[in-house]
């Protein structure tokens, strides 16, 4: 190890853990396809997005190792999400409160 290298040893994820994450992702994919075949109206879109978000969090936490990273990377990810939420929130405020016929 070269001098000045004070980084902690990287966490090695076991093949078993990674395979378990993959199995969860595959199950959630099956679930979202099953839910799509049932008509729940607009809740279909919400359910699909909720499952997609759960899958995304699994990928970020384990496949991308973010669970084991420091506060900096996690904080920056949070910042990116806040930024997107502001974009989406303000756009929909605009769309929701427009006078009819003014699109």
């Amino acid at each position, binding site marked *: 190890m070269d001098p000045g290298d004070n980084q902690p040893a990287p966490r090695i*994820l076991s093949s078993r853990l990674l395979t378990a994450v*993959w199995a969860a992702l595959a199950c959630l*994919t099956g679930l979202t396809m099953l839910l799509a075949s049932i008509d729940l109206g607009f809740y279909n879109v919400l359910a699909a997005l909720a499952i997609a978000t759960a899958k995304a969090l699994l990928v970020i936490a384990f496949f991308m190792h973010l669970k084991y990273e420091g506060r900096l990377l996690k904080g920056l990810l949070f910042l990116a999400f806040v930024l997107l939420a502001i974009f*989406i929130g303000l756009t929909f405020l605009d769309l929701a409160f427009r006078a009819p016929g003014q699109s």
Partner: protein
Amino acid sequence: MPEPRRDQAGAKLGMWLFLYSEMVLFGGLFLLYAAYLHRYQPEFHRAAQGLDALLGGINTVVLITSSLFMALSLTALQTGQPGRCLGMLALTVLLGASFLVNKALEWGEKFQHGIYPGSPGVLALPPGEGTFYSLYFALTGLHGLHVLVGVVLLGVVMLMLWRGRLRQDHPALLENAGLYWHLVDLIWLFLFPLFYLIT
């Protein structure tokens, strides 16, 4: 010649910053999709029936499986098994390529029915349905381009590994290529329900 000083944490931070910018890039396009879904809800539902959800589901499983092999390749390198790492990377590339083939077949089928960007067929569709297909081609096209770049990048990583330039004690290149590959998988996880499952 002394070993060059490597900054593992810096390399990873740089990659993550790039990934955040990618998230905002796709986020803007998702926002466009959401705004049009809000305006043309029934049309989007009707247009989405023209896409094969089973084919989309198969592609989802292909990508998450490729992501598993990608993650396993890093574990293999970290535990000192470069041969196994190379094999896992080969499987990742193979699955990435089959995703692209699957996508090409899907697009080709649409093209045969006169549905391609800016085609008279798309323009003749009812307003919201044409918008759906324009967004479909823009988003899956940009995503497909990312998969293609990922496949090339993984090819370079495999070459470096083969030549012994990528080793257990400095896996930054493999880690960063993996992060990119997982992000591309992540974006597909949202594209799939939004285009295939809102029928």
